[in-house]
Every structure is written in structure tokens, then in C-alpha cells.
């Protein structure tokens, strides 16, 4: 993020777009993630209220299969750890290792999406079947959208951290840090979602 304002007015000096303050982009992203989290909070509140006050018909009550979502939880938690490893490698200027960890992270994210797809196709209900089904797909779908965006981000970060030629280095870590913060956020939301949707 750049500002148009130079630090000191010195007409003889060539002034280009420079920053006149510290980097607040991670702070801004964190504020945005608070907002994003509130969207999920609204969805969770709606789901829990539906569950509490709207009794479902007997044919609309399903026992969800747990193995696949549990695997998904593990995939995402492991991917958070591998992303952390990628950040560590970047700070040590080890671009090769950083890229390898990023690729593993992206692979885990895509595996999550694939496994989510498998679950969608094997579920006994569709989007418009009943209130529970609609809420299930809305919650997991909105989270899946976040995972998709996150996986794309990781792939972009992976491409940009190649050495030589990439823009992400130990001196310019922000894109990686931002993607990492976002990815941890998405994982955290999944854990809450898993507890509320599958275990409760």
C-alpha cells in the first residue's frame, strides 16, 4: 500500500510514491477478518436458532457420516502447520523449502475441497430439501468458498516466492503473512463449524 504523500517537502529531491508510515496492512486484514467472522457468526446464530425452534419432520433428520469431515478437519489443521513452516523457511531465506511447504499446504487445501465434493455427492439430501439441508449447504458452501479463495492465494504466493524472479522474499513477506493469517482464520472457522454442524 502506498500513499501519495512524501515525508518532507523538498522540491529539489525526486519524490516518488513512498510510504510515510509503518505498514498497517496486517492490522487492516485482521480487522477485515473480524468482519468476515461476524458473517459466519450470523450464519451460526441462524443455524442454532433454526435447530432450537424449528422442529424438523421425521424424514428430514439425518445421521451425518463422521469419517469424511473428521479427515477434513485433520487436513486443514495440518495445512495450518505446513503454512507456518513455509513462513519460517521464508524468514530464513530458504526459498526452495518455503515453496515446498507452500505446495504441500495448497495440496492439503485442494484435498479438503475434493473431499468436501465427495461428501456433497454422497449426502442423502439436496439444497432445497428442507431447512436443515439448506443451512448445511449454506454454511459449508460459504466456508468452502473461503477455502477455494485461500487455495488460490496460496498458489499465487507459491508462484511469487520462486527464486529468482518472485516478488515474495524475506524482505517482502507481507503477501505470505496475509495469506497465512487468512488461512489460519479459515481453519479456525472450520473447527467451529465442525463442532456446531457435525458434533452438536
Amino acid at each position, binding site marked *: 500500500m502506498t500513499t501519495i504523500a512524501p515525508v518532507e517537502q523538498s522540491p529539489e529531491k525526486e519524490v516518488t510514491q513512498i510510504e510515510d508510515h509503518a505498514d498497517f496492512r496486517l492490522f487492516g486484514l485482521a480487522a477485515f477478518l473480524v468482519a468476515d467472522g461476524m458473517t459466519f457468526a*450470523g450464519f451460526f446464530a441462524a443455524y442454532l436458532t433454526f435447530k432450537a425452534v424449528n422442529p424438523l419432520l421425521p424424514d428430514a433428520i439425518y445421521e451425518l457420516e463422521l469419517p469424511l469431515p473428521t479427515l477434513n478437519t485433520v487436513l486443514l489443521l495440518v495445512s495450518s502447520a505446513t503454512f507456518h513452516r513455509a513462513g519460517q523457511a521464508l524468514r530464513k531465506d530458504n526459498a526452495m523449502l518455503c515453496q515446498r511447504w507452500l505446495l504441500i499446504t495448497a495440496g492439503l487445501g485442494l484435498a479438503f475441497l475434493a473431499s468436501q465434493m465427495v461428501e456433497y455427492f454422497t449426502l442423502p439430501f439436496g439444497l432445497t430439501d428442507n431447512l436443515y439441508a439448506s443451512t448445511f449447504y449454506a454454511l459449508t458452501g460459504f466456508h468452502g468458498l473461503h477455502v477455494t479463495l485461500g487455495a488460490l492465494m496460496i498458489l499465487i504466493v507459491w508462484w511469487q516466492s520462486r527464486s529468482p524472479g518472485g516478488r515474495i522474499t524475506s524482505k517482502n513477506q507481507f503477501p505470505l503473512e496475509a495469506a497465512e493469517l487468512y488461512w489460519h482464520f479459515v481453519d479456525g472457522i472450520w473447527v467451529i463449524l465442525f463442532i456446531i454442524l457435525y458434533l452438536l
Partner: protein
Amino acid sequence: MIFANPSSPEKTSERLQPTGWLRYFSFSLDHKVIGLQYLICGFIFYLIGGSLASAIRVELTSPISDFMARDVYNQVLTLHGTIMIFLWIVPVVNGAFGNYLIPFYVGARDMAFPRLNAVAFWLIPPAGLMLISSYFITGAAESGWTAYPPLSITTPATGQIIWIISVLLLGGSSIFGGINFIATILKLRQPGLKLMQLPMYCWAMLGTSILVVLSTPVLAGTLILLSFDIVAHTGFFNPSMGGNVIVYQHLFWFYSHPAVYIMVLPAFGLVSEILPVHCRKPLFGYTTMVYSIMAIVGLGLVVWAHHMFTSGTPPWMRLFFTIATSFIAVPTGIKFFNWVATLWGGKISLNSAVLFSCGFIINFVLGGITGVALAQVPFDVHVHDTYFVVAHFHYIVYGGSVFVIFSSIYHWYPKFTGRMLNENIGRLHFVLTFIGFNLCFAPQHWLGLNGMPRRVAEYDPQFTFVNQLSSAGALLMALSTLPFLWNVINSAMNGPIAGDNPWRALTPEWLTSSPPPVENWEGKAPLVNEPYGYGRSTKNPKSPNDGERDTK
């Protein structure tokens, strides 16, 4: 609209941006340009929303539906509410004055994220145009600005979906703006400037931005679910499919009650800037003002269900929300008495800015009293969905926020343009607006108490005379816009030159040229530790302050 170009062309940073009046149509990153873009864009939407309000009042001069068809009436009132809230008051009290003033107040050259700032503004014109154009496609949304299901699910889908998309865009704009304000106020303060030394508007914007970031996303999520109901035929809010309409109301009001504070807290801040300057007295009770803003933010998040007392809310919920809502009167009352105490014994110059601010104080206390009354369940159940509620919230948002917007335009116009407005035309504008506003909305209390429902084009003939009285007030309000427009446009070209600091104010935006240069100050930003030190150091506003705040 043309404004004088502030800076000399030699400034190297200017090469990056268009200059002259063209920059107001560009993707400018200058917070002052973006602020004025918000202001002018918002005012154009105010004129459109005002025309729709006039159409409503014309329809209501007779008890039968003769001026417009009934469904057109529904579309007009939906557009009126949506435009006035999302395209006029929220962008102007937050976006326009916030962008213009906050960087000055924290001693910065620009907002924390200038590019995000420009993105936030440029989401607004397309959203507004889309909303208005929906009327010409297959008809605009008909379900009111609240879009309660099942009405919003059963009315024509195209208009409703366009409404949802534009509100989502405007909500996004609002969230981006809120993030920017939080980062600017908390992180971009110049060294040596403590939080408790900031001008009151910064605190108001910090509180507002917290509300925006916490509550707007919930509305966005809700509207996404609603659009699923309309487009994909899910049943979240559709009772015939097992859905629950009350959940929509809870989620909607979780945003839309704080939205009232998003509209009125910045207005509180602006009044707190304007009154001390024109009374030549320090703002009374700075610390209590700060704490009452934060109390309103906290309480404002837990009072939403007082909009739903007739929606079958259980008794414990009614009790809780009645008590919480009544509590809000305490911090609001503190602010009211602090403004009165600021005026008390001051050397008040009765110019247009002060007149509109005093008009705000009077109107807002009236709207606040009816607000406390409406928080009481037995009374609310009686007048819910009647014109009493319409009168109440117009006293808050028009008598409150819009009066403050006009007051702020009169106060900061010399800074925006470098020229003074004509005071006599300004006073005429105030008199017409104040009389017109009270003539329009005071009778609506009576209408509501006698049972006239809101949002209906037809009514019992016994209400005809009072409705005509109200419409006469609306006509006066519409007319009052004309001297204002003439004043603003004419003074931009022919008004007397204002000079840097025509009001002898102490806040930092006045310690630079009018209009300010792109980098806000030539050289170093001044450190203002005592923005309200009037009556002590007026001889030389730039003299160093002792840092002690005197609120006596």
C-alpha cells in the same frame, strides 16, 4: 461542481493524480478529494430520495390512492428509505466528513489505506445507479427498506434481487471505510498525540467504525440467505417450507439498529466540533463525552429486538431489550447536557452552522424522548407500525443527522472551497428547513397515536387535514433546498475569500491553507494537544498548549 485547485503544479506528487475539477471524477487517492466525492455523490442521492419523499407526501394529501398506483407507492417508499439511509446519510456522515477530517485530526497526510478508500467510494455510484435503474426494468423492490420475508420473497424477484446486490455493495463500501478509519485513528496518530487528546469526531468515528465492522457483515450474510430464498427457492425464511421469518428479523435488526448509531454517532462528533468553535468555549465534559460514545456503541449492539416487540418475542426478551434500550438514554442524555453546557455562557455567533446545530439539539431531544417511549413494550405494541414510529425516526435521522450535515457544510465549506457562504441565505435555509421539518413530522405523532398505519398509500378520511398539514411541511422542506443549492454553487465561484481560518478555530484542519494542499500541510504537521482550548489561547492558535484540558 468546481472548486479552486489548491496546489501549485510544481508539486511532484501531483503528477500522479489528475488536477483541477477533473480529479473529482477520477480514482483519486487524496482523502480530501474522496471526502468531497462522497459528499457531492451523497447530496445528489439526497435530491433523488427527497423527490421520492415529495412524491409520497403528494400521494398522502388525499385519503385515496390517486397520484400513483399502489405498487408504485410501495416501490417509491422502498427506494426512498434505502437511498436516504445507504446512499445519503451513512456515506456522508461517515465517508464524506470522516475522510476529509480524520487525517487532519490525527496529523496524517492521508488515510491508512488510500487505495482501499477510493475503492470504498467507487462502490457507491454503481450501487446507487443499479438500485434506481431497477425501477425502470421491471419495477423496484416493494418490501420496504427492511425487506422482511415472506413479503420480500413473494413480491417480484428482479427488483428485490437488484436491491439486495446494491445493499451488499454499499455494505462492502461501509466495511472497507470502517476498517480504514479504525486503522487511521488507532495507528496513524502522529507521535505525541494521545487518544484522549483527539477531537471528539475521531472518537465518534472510532465507535461508529467498530459498529460497522461488527454488524454490517451480519446483514450481508442475511441478505445472501434471503437471495438464496428468492433465486434458489431454499426455505430459510419461508414459513411454507419450514423456515423462520423471525430469524431474519433478528439478524436484520442486529445490523439495522446499530445502523441508527452509524448514522447518528458521527453527527454527535461533528456537533461537538462545531459548537465550541462558534461559542468560543471548550467542549464541556470531554471525558464523559468519550465514555458515553463508547457506552452507546456497547449498548447499541444489544438492543436490536426492540424493533420486534410485536413479532411474538418471549417476555424475558421483551424485558431485557426494554431495559437495555432505556439505558441508552443515559449516555445520550449526558451528551445532550454537555452540548447545552458548552453553549451556556458562551459568546455564541448565531450563524447558519450554529443554527443548524441548535436545531439538531432540539429535534434530537424530541426524537430521543419518543425513542424512550417506544422502548416501553405496552406503548410500543400500541403504536408499532404506525406514523408515530415514522415521526420518531425522522426526528432522529433528519432532525438529527441531516441537520448536522447541513451544519457541517456551513462550518467546513470555507475549508473545502476557500470561499465563504452567504450567511443570510444560510439563515433563510435554516428557517425554512426547521419550520418545514417540524410541520411535516410533528403532526405524524398525532396520526400514529390515532392509529394511522405506515407504508400504506390509503388512509381513513378523518386523517386528511393533518396529512395535508404534513405535506405542506414537506413542500417547505423541498423549497428550502433551493436557496441552499444556489448558495453552495454561487459561493463556490463568487463568494468572498475565506482565508485559512475564518472561524479562528483550533483544530488542525484550520491550521493550513483553504483549500488545503495535497499533502495537507506545507512542511511538518502541527501537533494539537488541546483542540478545544478556546477562551485561553485564541490570540495565537499555534501557540504551544499546556496539555491540560479545562472543561469548566
